[in-house]
């Protein structure tokens, strides 16, 4: 633990280990970012070239490649990773369940429904993003409506979410059969999660939502770590539990929906990133900042792998995260079982 106190009575406290993890992740992000912008594609560039281009000294071709193709893709990846990881961390902490994530609650399925409707009816990329956001939000509202006045506590939300997810999965499958084969292929690509051709139009709204929700998340962050002690303990310590839970879940729904709108429902980042963050920092509690950074690193790394894994062909990033995440999840559950925790 390190503490910084000012004479005016202000004080900040942080864990040395968490701080180290955050710094480490941030530098890893920077390195990966350089690699992502520089390498790959048909026009490899050295890190020096990249830096020169970024500071305005590149050729027009380089300007285009970096500024219009690679940089926006990178920014989207970073933002999607961070947003999904934050949503996952909040959901896991609120539900007091290490397996909570926006997929489990049906939020990503909701986004998928929105997107599929657009695919079936026909519509542009922006309409699709809007519909996906709306779909995710609608699924969140549905959960809130069903759990109703009893509040958004633990197990009930999980079960309701699973029900909502199952219904939407049925609907999504049906929508998929309604589409033309070409459209269906496009829809499946979207459903898997992909960063191909993502530009500023996807990155900017997501950055906006991230910027808007960050103060809220960190403001309620301490309340969040109190609710982990149980509702009664949290209320007794003066946490406005209901309000905090509503605000936090709302923010998580928004983040997950907008992230899905930008890159599709990339699987497992939301589930895995908070776990990895907790393992790295070894700190209890939601680990919001560390989770967000780990999520960003994960997605950028997965995208690098996806672009290079198969010669001459780009995999959607969701396949990479799905395979890696699935393996991690099974290992996690097995480990948890061995530890005998309920």
């Amino acid at each position, binding site marked *: 633990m390190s503490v910084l106190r000012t004479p005016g009575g202000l004080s900040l406290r942080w864990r040395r280990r968490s701080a180290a993890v955050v710094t480490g992740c941030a530098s890893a992000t920077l390195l990966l970012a350089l690699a992502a912008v520089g390498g790959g594609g048909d026009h490899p560039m050295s890190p020096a070239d990249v830096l020169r281009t970024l500071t305005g000294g590149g050729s027009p071709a380089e300007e285009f490649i970096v500024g219009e193709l690679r940089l926006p893709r990178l920014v989207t990846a970073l933002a999607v990773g961070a947003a999904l990881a934050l949503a996952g961390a909040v959901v896991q902490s609120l539900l007091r369940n290490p397996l909570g994530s926006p997929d489990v609650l049906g939020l990503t399925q909701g986004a998928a429904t929105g997107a599929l409707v657009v695919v079936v009816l026909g519509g542009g990329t922006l309409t699709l993003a809007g519909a996906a956001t709306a779909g995710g939000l609608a699924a969140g509202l549905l959960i809130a409506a069903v759990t109703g006045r009893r509040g958004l506590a633990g197990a009930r939300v999980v079960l309701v979410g699973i029900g909502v997810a199952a219904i939407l999965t049925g609907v999504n499958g049906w929508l998929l059969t309604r589409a033309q084969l070409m459209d269906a*292929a496009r829809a499946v690509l979207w459903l898997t999660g992909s960063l191909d051709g993502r530009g500023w139009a996807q990155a900017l709204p997501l950055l906006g939502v991230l910027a808007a929700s960050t103060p809220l998340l960190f403001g309620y962050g301490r309340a969040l770590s109190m609710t982990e002690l149980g509702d009664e303990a949290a209320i007794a310590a003066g946490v406005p539990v209901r309000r905090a839970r509503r605000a936090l879940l709302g923010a998580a729904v928004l983040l997950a929906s907008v992230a899905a709108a930008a890159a599709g429902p990339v699987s497992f980042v939301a589930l895995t990133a908070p776990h990895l963050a907790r393992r790295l920092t070894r700190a209890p509690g939601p680990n919001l900042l560390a989770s967000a950074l780990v999520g960003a690193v994960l997605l950028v790394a997965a995208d690098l792998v996806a672009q290079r894994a198969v010669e001459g062909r780009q995999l959607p990033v969701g396949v990479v995260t799905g395979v890696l995440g699935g393996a991690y999840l099974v290992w996690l559950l097995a480990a948890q079982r061995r530890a005998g925790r309920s």
Partner: protein
Amino acid sequence: MLLSIAVGARPLSPAEVWQGLVSTASPEHSVVHQMRLPRTLLGLLAGAALGVSGALMQALTRNPLADPGLLGINAGASAAIATAVGLLGIGTVGGWIWFAMLGAAAVTALGYAVGGGRRATPERLALAGAALNAVLFSYVSGMMLIDAASLDRLRFWTVGSLAAAEFATVRTVAPFIAAGLLAALAGARALNALALGDDAARALGARPALVRVGTITAVTLLCGAATAACGPIVFVGLLVPHLVRRLTGPDLRWLLPACAVYAPVLLLGADVAGRVLGRPGELQVGLVTAVLGGPLFLRLVARR
């Protein structure tokens, strides 16, 4: 009872067509005959299989919210079939069924082990199932992306439908489902004992480990066969045992046969509803059960 189900599905077709169907003499209806009758038979079999396997899962996990679909068993069968279609190019139900069985068996065992085995709680099992579903979903969609032909096949299969039924299909799955139903009924007494907890069951002379393995085998036979033939159909296995339990009480010796009777009613009902609502085409039965069954599930949870 079985007759009434068969009749229940009929009234949709105009009465004279039906008359023609029954009297095999009228040749112009034999086409309809070949489509409608196997479809009804398959609905009966699949419905019974799903209903009973749902009741078994609920008894085995001591969890009223267990359902083969929710626990990822159907998704396991889907993933296996996706492999069969995508990588091996197998296109017939007769070929699929073995893969579906294998996938269902693997995921059943995994879901139960991962969900905590004997210490499983409702939430953990549900989450383990949801997680497995998510893994398998991304795998299946990966398969679909690799190959447009399997996408075209799988996207129709994954909704869950009785529309592709033929007599050959019925003949292939019937032995598996029959075996599964028999195993289930034979194990009902032992499962009843297990419902009181492992120690009590042992005291009553049952062998918990054996009963578990037997039940899982029965679930795999039933669910794998039904899924292979119709695709993943959710909520039937969840809802029917609940509705039936109100009539029979928790005794599995009554509950299981009752599920085997009522689940087909529900499934065929949903199938008929899908045909009526979807005119001039039809809605897949899997969609109908999701849209009708889902809200019921939510009500159940919200009232708990």
